[in-house]
Structure formats: C-alpha cells, structure tokens
C-alpha cells in the first residue's frame, strides 16, 4: 500500500504533449479513477506510474520515495491491461504464477498456495487450469485480475480493462473490483473513458482533457459542481443541457438571452455572474433537475418544449425534447409521465443552474 504522488508530470512525443504538467496526490488505499475522452493523457499518466513511459519532465514517488527512474520491475506494482496481455501459451494457473516466478525466492508450495488464494478471491478457480485461449472474455478478465492480485502489490493499475465486456458483466466486475480493492486496502488507479464507470467506482475522480487535469474530487463534487464546461458536458448521463446565452444587466437583474430563451436572474443567483469576463456564457442544467408542467408557471423558470422521444430506463424515462426553435433539451422524469408529442414546459430551480464564463470547453464555473 502506498501513497502515490505525481509532481509536474509532462510527457511529450515530439511536438505532441500527452500530459501537461500534471500533479496529483493519490492517497494510500484510495481508488482513484482517471477519466476523460481518448487522447486526454489518462493512459500516459497511468503508464508513467507503471514505468512503461519515461516522463519528459516531472517525478513520481511512492510513499515519498522517488521512483521516476526505476524500471517497472522495481516498482512493486501490478497492472491489468486493456487487452489483458495474458500469455496465450500458458494455462490460467501459469499466468497467475508468473509474477511470483519472476520475483524468485518463492517455493513451489508457496506459489501454489498464493495462486489458489488469488484464484478464489477472483472467483476463477473453476477454470484456472484451462488454456487462456479456451476461456471466455469474462473468464480471461478474472484470470488477469488474479495475476495482478497474486503478489499483493503496493499500487494496482487498471487500464480500461472492462471496455470489451458486455454491459452486465462489466457492472458485475466493477462491483467486484471495488470490493477487492477495499478488502485488500490497496491503492488503485483505474483508467476509463466511461464516465459512468468512473462515477460508480471511484473514491476520487481525476477528470482529464487534452493533457491537463481539469478537476480532481470525489464523484459527488464532480457531478454537482463541475469546475469547467468540459467537465459539465463530460460527466453525467444523460448529458447536461446547455444554453449559450448573451449576458446583459438590467439594474440588478442579469438577463441571459439565448436568442430564443430569456432567463432573468436576481439576487444571490445572479451574484456570481458579476465575475463573468465573457459576454457569451454557457448556462447548463442537469436533465435530472428538470420537471414537467402543462402550463408555463408564472413565477418559475421554464423552457417551452415538445416531447420527441421517450427512452425507458426503468423507474425513470429519459425524454428528448425540443424548444419551438429546435434547441434540444433532455429531461429525466418518472416513468410513464410523458408521451411523445406532448407539449408543455420544463421547469427548473435557478439554484440548480451551472453557469460558466464562456462557451468553450475551458470556460470556468462562475457559481
């Protein structure tokens, strides 16, 4: 178990900057998820921790010991790869035993025992003696986990290991990995592009974009207070609703005008807008924070909308709507409440708005 510190990590490939001056402090025993779109630098960061990439600048330390220049063999880590990287010419058991054989100094009996234990906790003892090529995707996944766990490393790294699995298996394995991580109290860094996976697994999320860490915090924080417009758009399903509005002031009233919709904010809600430096702002609201009204509420905030598509997801429905001028708005409402073709208003509380200073990805949160 170790605390992982990444200081000013920069990795350049020629003129391409994969990670740009990243600093992270990952607590001992935490499950931290690096999440972001492809090419955001999350995998490069993980591989730098593993020692598979040499940082251009910056350092990495485990428990205060600088390990930047150590090869992977001397780092006391284990890793599950995106393609699992199991050795196809060996059985599952030989794969799991491999790290112990590499480390030397274990007797055959000790290896046997450790492999058996790892196989049991990852639930793969039934097929551990089969050849890798005879195993299903989910079974291979479990063998890869067992191989990573067998040596009880200080730091456990996962590089999108679930991306090829079907949804059900994915959910099941996520839960099992979280449980194992807690049981062993190991420090785990997990990389994924799937924001839902990040939200469900992580103690902490590190949201990355274009080589930068955009936000570091627990899932609730990231969801309810996204630091930039990028985070707001990336985290959360269905995606957040966004209206790009011009800002003007009418006395103490901030007038946000999207061309079609006009929101007038007053008092405390409007206060943060005084800090705006841009003239056009992104005004966002989560689909979960919208509710339906047949008629326009007199003293409330609302968006006129027509229901186009209703997607059933169980106890809730995701309804895809458009405003009269064609702007898309998504809402999550109780199942069966709305049907296609209905017209009405989507009502929200201005306290739930996310306001960003600008309309590009880097626009920072105002409120």
């Amino acid at each position: 178990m170790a605390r992982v510190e990444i200081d000013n990590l920069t990795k350049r490939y020629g003129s391409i900057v994969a990670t740009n001056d990243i600093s992270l402090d990952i607590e001992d025993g935490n499950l931290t998820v690096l999440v972001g779109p492809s090419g955001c630098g999350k995998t490069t960061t993980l591989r730098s921790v593993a020692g598979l990439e040499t940082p251009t600048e910056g350092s990495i330390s485990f428990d205060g010991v600088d390990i930047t220049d150590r090869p992977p063999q001397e780092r006391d880590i284990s890793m599950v790869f995106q393609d699992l990287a199991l050795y196809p010419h060996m059985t599952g058991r030989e794969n799991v035993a491999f790290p112990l054989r590499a480390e030397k100094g274990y007797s055959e009996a000790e290896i046997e025992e450790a492999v058996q234990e790892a196989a049991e906790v990852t639930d793969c003892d039934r097929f551990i003696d089969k050849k890798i090529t005879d195993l299903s995707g989910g079974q291979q996944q479990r063998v890869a986990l067992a191989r990573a766990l067998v040596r009880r490393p200080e730091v456990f790294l996962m590089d999108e290991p679930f991306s090829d699995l079907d949804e059900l298996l994915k959910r099941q394995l996520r839960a099992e990995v979280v449980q194992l991580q807690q049981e062993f109290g190991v420090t785990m860094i997990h990389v994924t592009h799937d924001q839902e996976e990040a939200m469900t697994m992580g103690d902490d999320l590190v949201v990355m974009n274009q080589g930068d860490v955009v936000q570091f915090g627990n899932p609730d924080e990231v969801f309810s207070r996204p630091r930039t417009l990028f985070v707001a758009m990336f985290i959360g399903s269905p995606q957040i609703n966004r209206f790009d509005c011009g800002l003007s002031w009418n006395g103490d009233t901030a007038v946000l005008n999207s061309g079609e919709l006009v929101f007038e904010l007053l008092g405390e809600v409007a206060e943060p807008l005084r800090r705006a430096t841009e003239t056009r702002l992104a005004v966002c609201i989560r689909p979960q924070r919208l509710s339906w009204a047949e008629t326009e509420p007199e003293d409330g905030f609302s968006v006129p909308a027509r229901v186009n598509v209703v997607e059933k997801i169980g106890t809730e429905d995701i309804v895809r709507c458009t405003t009269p001028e064609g702007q898309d708005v998504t809402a999550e409402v109780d199942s069966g409440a709305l049907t296609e073709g209905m017209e009405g208003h989507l009502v929200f509380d201005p306290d739930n708005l996310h306001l960003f200073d600008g309309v590009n990805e880097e626009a920072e949160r105002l409120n």
Partner: protein
Amino acid sequence: MSTTRDSLQERIAVNIPIRREKLTPLLLVGPALVTVFLVTIGPMLWSLWLSFNRWTPSSITYQEPTFNGIGNFAWLFTEGRFWDSAINFVYYGGVGVTVQVLLGTALALALYNYVERRSVRIGLLTLFAVPMMIAPLVAGRIWQLLLLPGGGAVNGILGMVGNSGLPWLQSRWLGLTALMIADTWQWVGLPLLIIYGGRASIPDSMYEAAQVNGASRWMQFRRITLPQLQTLIAIAFILRFMDAYKFFDKLFIITRGGPGTQTELPTFYTYIVGFSEFNIGRAAALTWVIGLGSILTMLLFWRFMNTEGSV
C-alpha cells in the same frame, strides 16, 4: 431441421437416386485426380518398381529392366561412397540448417528489438532477402570465386588479419563448410523473415505485462518470446531441411563433389549414379532411401517439437 426434411421429401418426390449425388463430385474432380496420378504418383510408383530392377539403359548391349529383388538396396548399403555422402549430409544438414535457423532467429530478434528506425529495419530485412532471389547457380559461382585459395576475397581478408588463409575447396570438411557458408548466405533470410513476422505479431502489451510482473529480459525471452515462436522455428527448420535434402546446384558449381568424391551429398551421388553411370535402378533405390530418410527426419522433428511445448 425442417430444411433437411424438406429436401429429403423433395428427393423422394422427384425420385433422384442418392447414388448419383455421390458420383457427381467424383466425376468433377476426376480429371484433376488423373492428371495428378499421371505426373506424380505414377512416376513415383514406377521409380519404386525400378528400384527393385537392374536397368542400365546406356550400356552397349541394351537391356530391358530385369528384376533383381533388393539387389540395389543391398549394393547401396555396402557402397562406401554412399555412406560417405550420408555422413556429409549429417554434417551439412544437421549443422548447416541449425546454424541457418538459429542465426536467422537471432538476427530477426536483434532487428526487431535493437533497430529503432523502421526504415532501417525494413532496409536490412530487404537486404537479407535479396540473396534468396539470386539463382543458386549464380550464388554458387560467386562463392566459388570468393573462396578461391589464391586470389579469393575470403582468403584475402583472412590474410589481412594475419592468417595465411584456408584451403577452402581442397578438403572434405572445409569444402562442406564452404557449401554451408554459401547456402547460409543465400538462405538465412528465410528463417529471418519467418521469425521476424512471428515476433512482430506478439503484442507489446505482453512484454509490458511481463515487466510489470517483474520479469527480467531473460525471463521475457525464455517464457514469452521463445514459446510463442516455437512453432515458427520448427517450420523454418523443416523448410530448410527440405532444401538441404535436395541441395544440388551450389554443390555442383562450388566443389562438384570434390576433392575426389569427398564432398558429395546423397542427391549429388544419386545424380552421378543415375545420369553419369546410367544405373537407373540403383539411382531409383537411392531416391527412395533419401525420401524415406527425409520423412523420418520430419516425423522425429515434429514429435520433438510437440513434446517440448504445446503451442
């Protein structure tokens, strides 16, 4: 299920005899089978029959083939020249092919692991492949000239480093070694290409996983690279062995079996018996012994490879 029943019902309905359905495919492949029989299996069987006959068609009093039982084979096993050629083959085939495959493997792995620039790698691969495109006779002539005792480039270079040079083509083992060098120069590219392809198809992540798992470079080679290349190495061995068994052209040019008959290989000796002495029966017996020998080698080899590992 329903479709098979339907087709059966149809068949009953229109009353097609089932036997004809079995005959049609035979009729379709028939011409090809006849051709194959005429050009390969037929002559093979004929040569088998000849190997039990005495037939010297060029002698002054021409004789039809006359059956002489295992006479040809009996002669063969008491003929010192044949045994010499067989021993030569053990040296040439055993050592030569092993060197070629191991050298090719080593070069392939070195190219893949240590030559970083892709363009340089491709260039070197091509360079190693070029000799394979040269006619064996030409390659033989080149090496004959290079190995000339006086004035040959090889001895010239040896001379520069203070060696008085070697009498390359004037002794049995040096002569065979010269053949080996020439053949290796020409064919090392084949195992090289095969093994390079095999190595390139092992995903990098497998080595990264091994590093993370703490494996040293030697362990990575021993436990990951080698087992996954094993089948390809076996294939390279077999391909080169096949060529070694029929090795003829460069031998014909470089040593012509000499000095004397000392560097003869079985196929070359067969050629002498068949087309110089025109003892066709004996030559046929020789080809069958060589053929059986090659099959035996391959079988032993596959067996060895299969017990070694399980790819």
